[in-house]
């Protein structure tokens, strides 16, 4: 798809693009040319790489034999930024050619929604990221000479930009007439049986919509009052009013704009302290934690160091075994050798069990057959661009297969579920040993196994907990997501299911996981990581007015591009903020294992370990490791992920007051599907 047939009205050379992918430590840069061409339907922006441009469009290499730099990017999380690919023959040839250099970028100027411009430090150029209306994000353009404004000016012949009031780096396309037209078309309602936007809801059923909106206020207050530690669970109306006046001066009820819809404007949280990451734990630091017998001493201090900086890559093979619980921290070197011997023995016994199933047995064992098929399919497409798994007939792919098959024998009830191969792959890469990798993986699964259960309860609980966290920490964002059909947070499903494996680059996910495995600084810290990522993207989502598909696309397009250190800093900062928050509802205290600082409570079952105090050795009273365990499913008042819609009307359901149900009650309700989208 070379600069199609239209007139080229603008040319800008020397514009670079990073090629990102899960297995690249350093992103290669390609220099190329940006053009804007005039088509009958408007302007088209294109970018082509300079090097190796073969004018005939002939393939330079075969995609099957090469490592697919760009296309693996495009497959995993790409967007439709090449919308007009109907000239198939032409584009096939070009595609084949582009195995080693990035594909072209090509989109209609009219499809632009906004762009983000970041100036690099010390005058090292500028970066422009375009956001398209479908939520997709073409690769970021890098202008080493800082001259991106020429391009922006050229674009302004077609569209106008205005700077976002909330994000100084964000420039939104200004389309004055658009909204009216969009509205009119949406109300044609050709196929959608029911739209859930508020206006529509209001027209359909003004009473429900309004009362639903109002009930958000009561719901919030109710939750607040109910969960406030010192308040009695039952109180009269007067008492509630009085209490509100006393204890909630910071809650404002917005009565001016859109009465009844958006209600709670802000609940002041303490400021977020600045957080810095530290250097990874080095070999001598690790060795200093081992006594003469090989027992690990000052465990909490070690964990704290790992939490703050992670581990040097070469230490992972040894230390992960402790973090995951394969080796007890207090075991001696001798004990570990003995343990390991036994574990290896156990592993091969289990492996033998499935290895010795004859083909004839297999014909009468459908559960086994199905799992085998699924594992076969998945290992052949797990991290195949990573050097460890690259190429055909790779023995390490076979190892993945063997370990997952053996895991089926180890945990037959759970078996194999998609996503597990993603969790195993980094562990195998680090362990470089089948049996060790198996046991580390098995320990990992102890903590995240509930994500994969048949009833998906682990996922539902976590989505619900995440909702509670967002609802409290960022009601604006929560409201926005609710009103854009995304209150179920399904767009975070992949994050939670495989603990961000597909969101971060391969070496970054190792860092993130080891941080999570420390169990610091609080329970379910991964939920705060989710919030941290959303927090960073919030302005982009809201200012672009992204709806359900665009939010999902934007989130999916962030895959392998998220900076782990930034996210960890932000998440820790949010943790510190919440742990200083006196109004932290009981439900959040339970989810995160944080205790609100004041007023002091005589009964304390959970001790939180803020990093500042963790430098001294502290007995970890939780004992068990660490990794996010969905807990306390009864504690959330926002039981929306499991509840049955009482009236079939989500607007009411989402916002109605719910009284904490009894345990037995909850169990019954969990049976009901959590699809409340409709």
């Amino acid at each position, binding site marked *: 798809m070379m600069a199609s047939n239209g007139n080229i009205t603008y040319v800008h050379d020397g514009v670079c693009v990073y090629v990102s992918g899960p297995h690249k430590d350093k992103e290669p840069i390609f220099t190329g040319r940006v053009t804007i061409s005039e088509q009958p*339907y*408007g*302007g088209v922006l294109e970018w082509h790489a300079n090097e190796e441009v073969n004018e005939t469009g002939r393939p330079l290499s075969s*995609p099957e034999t090469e490592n697919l730099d760009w*296309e*693996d990017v*495009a*497959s995993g*999380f790409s967007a*439709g930024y*090449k919308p007009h*690919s*109907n000239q198939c023959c032409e*584009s*096939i040839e070009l*595609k084949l050619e582009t195995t080693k250099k990035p*594909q072209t970028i090509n989109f209609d100027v*009219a*499809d632009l929604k906004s762009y983000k411009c970041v100036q690099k430090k010390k005058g090292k150029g500028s970066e422009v990221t375009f956001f398209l209306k479908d939520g*997709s994000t073409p690769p970021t353009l890098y202008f080493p000479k800082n001259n991106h404004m020429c391009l922006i000016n050229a674009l302004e012949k077609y569209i106008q930009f205005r700077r976002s009031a909330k994000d100084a780096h964000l420039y939104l396309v200004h389309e004055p007439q658009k909204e009216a037209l*969009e*509205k*009119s*078309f*949406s*109300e044609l309602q*050709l*196929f*959608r*049986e029911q739209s859930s*936007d*508020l206006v529509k809801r209001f027209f359909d059923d003004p009473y429900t919509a309004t009362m639903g909106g109002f009930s958000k206020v009561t719901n919030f207050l109710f939750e607040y009052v109910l969960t406030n530690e010192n308040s009695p669970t039952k109180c009269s109306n007067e008492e509630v009013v009085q209490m509100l006046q006393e204890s909630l001066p910071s809650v404002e009820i917005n009565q001016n704009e*859109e009465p009844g819809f958006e209600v709670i404007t802000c609940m002041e949280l303490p400021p977020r302290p600045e957080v810095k990451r530290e250097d990874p734990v080095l070999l001598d630091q690790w060795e200093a934690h081992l006594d003469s017998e090989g027992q690990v001493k000052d465990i909490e201090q070690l964990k704290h160091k790992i939490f703050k900086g992670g581990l040097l890559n070469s230490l992972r093979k040894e230390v992960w075994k402790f973090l995951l619980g394969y080796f007890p921290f207090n075991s001696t070197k001798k004990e570990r050798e003995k343990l390991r011997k036994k574990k290896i023995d156990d592993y091969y016994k289990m492996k033998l069990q499935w290895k010795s199933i004859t083909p004839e047995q297999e014909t009468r064992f459908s559960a086994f057959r199905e799992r085998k098929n*699924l594992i076969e*399919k*998945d290992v052949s*497409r797990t*991290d*195949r661009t990573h050097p460890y798994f690259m190429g055909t007939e790779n023995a390490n792919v076979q190892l993945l297969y063997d370990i997952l098959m053996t895991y089926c024998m180890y945990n037959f009830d759970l078996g194999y579920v*998609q*996503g597990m191969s*993603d969790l195993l792959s980094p562990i195998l890469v680090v362990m470089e040993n089948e049996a060790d990798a198996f046991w580390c993986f098995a320990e990992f699964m102890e903590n995240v196994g509930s994500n994969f259960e048949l009833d*998906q309860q682990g996922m539902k609980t976590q989505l619900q907990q995440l909702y509670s966290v967002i609802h409290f920490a960022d009601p604006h964002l929560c409201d926005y997501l609710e*009103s*854009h*059909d995304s209150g*179920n947070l*399904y767009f975070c*499903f992949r994050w939670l*299911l*495989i603990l961000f494996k597909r969101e971060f680059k391969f070496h970054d996910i190792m860092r993130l996981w080891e941080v999570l495995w420390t169990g610091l600084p609080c329970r379910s810290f991964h939920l705060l990581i989710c919030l941290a990522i959303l927090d960073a993207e919030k302005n982009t989502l809201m200012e672009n*007015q992204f*709806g359900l*598909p665009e939010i*999902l*696309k934007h989130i999916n397009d962030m895959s392998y591009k998220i900076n782990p250190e930034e996210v960890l800093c932000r998440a820790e900062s949010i943790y510190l903020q919440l742990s200083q928050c006196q109004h932290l509802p009981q439900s959040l205290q339970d989810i995160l294992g944080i205790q609100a600082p004041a007023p002091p409570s005589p009964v304390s079952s959970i001790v939180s370990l803020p990093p500042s105090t963790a430098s001294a050795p502290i007995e970890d009273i939780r004992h068990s490791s660490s990794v996010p365990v969905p807990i306390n499913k009864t504690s959330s008042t926002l039981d929306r992920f499991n509840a049955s819609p009482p009236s079939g009307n989500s607007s009411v359901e989402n916002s109605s007051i719910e009284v904490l149900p009894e345990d037995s009650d909850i169990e019954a309700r969990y049976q009901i599907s*959590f*699809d409340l*989208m*409709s």
Partner: protein
Amino acid sequence: MAKTYDYLFKLLLIGDSGVGKTCILFRFSEDAFNATFISTIGIDFKIRTIELDGKKIKLQIWDTAGQERFRTITTAYYRGAMGIMLVYDVTNEKSFENIKNWIRNIEEHASADVEKMVLGNKCDVNERRQVSKERGEQLAIEYGIKFMETSAKASINVEEAFFALARDIKRKMEKKMEATNPPKTGSHQLKANEPTKKTSRWFCTVL
């Protein structure tokens, strides 16, 4: 303002894990094939604009995780789909048998008048074929659904399949519009010849 498309169709790809849904979509949207695909976790979509009878149609095609366990989440996205591709793998008998379950799934979760089509993918791999073309056709006749054998790898029928599905949706939609347009006097109609018809994308921007 430029007109980027006249209609937006939401399509859905469903079928067992590993039948090639993502590859079909990648072939259609990027016209490429990648042997090192990764399994789909959760849900994603891609977009391609095609032209049919002079109309620009933006196809928003949703790709879902195939494993049964994730159906609670994937079915949440069935709503609003105008067309569904049911994909099986001709080298995998089980995936063909499961088409019936997938159809039942659609009946439960998608709107009643959704256009459907069955695709038997990987038809280039004849040496490992387990499901004959005739059986595919038979099944399609049984359910009154269109059928095609495809190969994302060899680029067989992928283009044709999506165009056929889009054409059926367009026909149905125009019929509906004809039926609803004249009597309705509401102010929200779009006239067919409206010059600056910048057809809508979403309903999300209203609030």
